[in-house]
C-alpha cells in the first residue's frame, strides 16, 4: 500500500495541443487514401493528443496504513435492505421507505407520474428478471451465477446458451490480440468503454452473504468467503455503459431512475455474454454487477477514468454518466490497461456542483480529499484511500423519499455533456488551466445553462419528438 508512483509523461504544451488540429486538417486535406496516411494521423494523435492525459503505472490515489479491505456486509445496501447492521435503524428505515415508495407515483408531478414510473420499471425489468438483487451487491444472482460447468456437464443439460467452460483452450497469438478480441466482443455486446486490469484483492470484498438467509436472521449461515469462488481470478475486465443523457438531465425523477435501470440491465446482459464468450474460449469467468468487488477502483485501475468528489467514476467521453460491470476470469494472457488522469480530481477541488445539487447534502464540500470520512459511524465507507467521502446515509435517505434513484450529482457534473466538439474543446482547456480558472469555468457552465437539476422542462425535452427520427429518415 504505497504512495502513487506515476510515470509522468505529461508535457502540458499548448503548442503541441494545437498541432493535433492542424496536423489533422493538413492530413485530411490530402485526399490520397493510402494506408500510410491513416497510420500518420494515428501516430500524430498518439504522440501529441494524449499529452494532456497522464498515464500512471500504479493505482493513482494514495493509500495509507488505515486501509482495510471491505466486506459485503458493510455495504450501504446490505444495511438498508438486508439488515446486516440491525443497530443502524436510520439506514434500515431509509431502505424500507425506498422499497415502499418505489411502488408509488404522483400524476401531479412531471417525471414522477405513472408514465415515468412505467418507463422506470421497463428500464429495470430485465435486470430484475435475470439477476434480481445484483444491484444491491448480492453476488451470484440469476445469470450472474458463479457456476463453471465443464463441457461434458454443459452438453448433457439443455444449455443452449453454451454457458460451460470449453475443454479446448484457445491460444491467442499475443497479449495484445487477446485484449483486442475481448474488447471488440464486449463492444459488440453493447459495452461503451472496456478496460482490462490485474485482479487486485484490495478491491475485492472480503466476504459475501446470502440476502434471504440474512433476512431470516440466520446471520452465521448467511456469510461465506472466497472459498466458494470457483477459481483464482487473474484478471478483471471492466465494462462501462453510457446512461441516456436526456434521462439523467431529468434527474431526480423516475426518468433518471429509468436510465439507471437500463444501465443495470445492460450491465447484466453484457457481463453475462462476455463470460460465456470467455468460457467458450476455455477460461473460467464470473460476470459481476455491483457484487464481488468494488467497481470504481477497478475501473480506475483499468484506465476507464478518474475518481470524483461524488465518488463515482468520471470517464473521458461520458463523464460520470456511466454504469460499471466486471467480469472476473482466470485468463491472464492479456495486455493490461493503465490508470489515466485528465484533470477531474483537480477540477473537483473547486467545482462542487454535485455537492450543491445533492438534495440530501450527502456530498463533501471539503476542498481537499481525505483518508477518512469526515463524519461518524460510517461503517459503509472503505477508509484509508485518499478521496472524497460521500455520506451514503444522507444519500439513501433521499432515495427513500423519492422511491427512485436520485442521480442529481451526475446530472449536475460539468463533465456530463453530450458528445460535441465544443465540450471536447472545453475539457481540453480545463486540463490546461490552473485552479482559479476552474472556478470561473464552473460559473460559466452554470450561466450557459448546463447541469441544473429538478427542472421539469427536462422531462418535456426527453419526450420531445421534434428533433428525433424513429423510422431512420
Amino acid at each position: 500500500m504505497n504512495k502513487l508512483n506515476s510515470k509522468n509523461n505529461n508535457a502540458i504544451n499548448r503548442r503541441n495541443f494545437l498541432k493535433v488540429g492542424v496536423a489533422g486538417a493538413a492530413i485530411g486535406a490530402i485526399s490520397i487514401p493510402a494506408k500510410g496516411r491513416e497510420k500518420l494521423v494515428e501516430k500524430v494523435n498518439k504522440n501529441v493528443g494524449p499529452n494532456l492525459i497522464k498515464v500512471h503505472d500504479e493505482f493513482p490515489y494514495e493509500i495509507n496504513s488505515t486501509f482495510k479491505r471491505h466486506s459485503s456486509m458493510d455495504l450501504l445496501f446490505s444495511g438498508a435492505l438486508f439488515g446486516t447492521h440491525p443497530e443502524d435503524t436510520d439506514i434500515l428505515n431509509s431502505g424500507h421507505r425506498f422499497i415502499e415508495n418505489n411502488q408509488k407515483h404522483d400524476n401531479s408531478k412531471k417525471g414522477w407520474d405513472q408514465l415515468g414510473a412505467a418507463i422506470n420499471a421497463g428500464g429495470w425489468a430485465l435486470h430484475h428478471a435475470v439477476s434480481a438483487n445484483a444491484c444491491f451487491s448480492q453476488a451470484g444472482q440469476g445469470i450472474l451465477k458463479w457456476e463453471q460447468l465443464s463441457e461434458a456437464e454443459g452438453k448433457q443439460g439443455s444449455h443452449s446458451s453454451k454457458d460451460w467452460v470449453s475443454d479446448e483452450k484457445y491460444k491467442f497469438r499475443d497479449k495484445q490480440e487477446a485484449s483486442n478480441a475481448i474488447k471488440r466482443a464486449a463492444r459488440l455486446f453493447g459495452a461503451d468503454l472496456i478496460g482490462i486490469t490485474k485482479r487486485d484483492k484490495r478491491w475485492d470484498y472480503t466476504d459475501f452473504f446470502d440476502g434471504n438467509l440474512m433476512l431470516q436472521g440466520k446471520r452465521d449461515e448467511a456469510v461465506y468467503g472466497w472459498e466458494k469462488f470457483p477459481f483464482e481470478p487473474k484478471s478483471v475486465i471492466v465494462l462501462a455503459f453510457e446512461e441516456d443523457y436526456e434521462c439523467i438531465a431529468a434527474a431526480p425523477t423516475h426518468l433518471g431512475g429509468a436510465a439507471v435501470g437500463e444501465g443495470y440491465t445492460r450491465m447484466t446482459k453484457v457481463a453475462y455474454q462476455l463470460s460465456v464468450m470467455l468460457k467458450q474460449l476455455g477460461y473460467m469467468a464470473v460476470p459481476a454487477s455491483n457484487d464481488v468487488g468494488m467497481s470504481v477502483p477497478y475501473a480506475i485501475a483499468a484506465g476507464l477514468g478518474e475518481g470524483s468528489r461524488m465518488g463515482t467514476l468520471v470517464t473521458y467521453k461520458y463523464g460520470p454518466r456511466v454504469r460499471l460491470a466486471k467480469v472476473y476470469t482466470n485468463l491472464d494472457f492479456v495486455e493490461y490497461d493503465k490508470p489515466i488522469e485528465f484533470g477531474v480530481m483537480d477540477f473537483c477541488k473547486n467545482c462542487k456542483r454535485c455537492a450543491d445539487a445533492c438534495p440530501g447534502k450527502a456530498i463533501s464540500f471539503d476542498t481537499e480529499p481525505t483518508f477518512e470520512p469526515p463524519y461518524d459511524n460510517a461503517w459503509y465507507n472503505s477508509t484509508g484511500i485518499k478521496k472524497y467521502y460521500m455520506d451514503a446515509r444522507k444519500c439513501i435517505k433521499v432515495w427513500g423519499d423519492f422511491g427512485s434513484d436520485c442521480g442529481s450529482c451526475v446530472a449536475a457534473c460539468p463533465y456530463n455533456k453530450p458528445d460535441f466538439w465544443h465540450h471536447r474543446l472545453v475539457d481540453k482547456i480545463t486540463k490546461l488551466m490552473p485552479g482559479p480558472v476552474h472556478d470561473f469555468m464552473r460559473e460559466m457552465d452554470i450561466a450557459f445553462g448546463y447541469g441544473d437539476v429538478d427542472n421539469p422542462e427536462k422531462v418535456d425535452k426527453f419526450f420531445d419528438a421534434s428533433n428525433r427520427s424513429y423510422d431512420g429518415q
Partner: protein
Amino acid sequence: MVFTGIEILFFTLGVMVTLIIISLIRYNKKYKFSALSWALLGIGSFLLVFCLAWSVSSVLEGVPRAASMGLMVFGIPAILLVLTGRRTVLKNQLKND
C-alpha cells in the same frame, strides 16, 4: 481529438469551395469566360471537390477501395474538365488578342 474527421473534412470543403469560387470570379474578370468555359470549369471544380469529399469519407469509413475508385471515377474526369476548360479560356484569349 477535439474534432472528428468528418468535421475537419467539411471545414476543408468549405475553404476549398470558397477559394475555387473566388478564383473563378477573378479569372472571369480577366479572361471573360465563354458559356462553354464556365460549364467545363464549373463542373470540373465541383467534381474535384466532390472527389476529395468522397475519398476522404471512404477512408474515414475504412473502405480504401472506394477511396481510390473515387479518385479515379471523379478525380480524372474532374482534372480533364478543368484542363479542357482552361484550354478553352486560353484559346478564347488568343483569339481576342
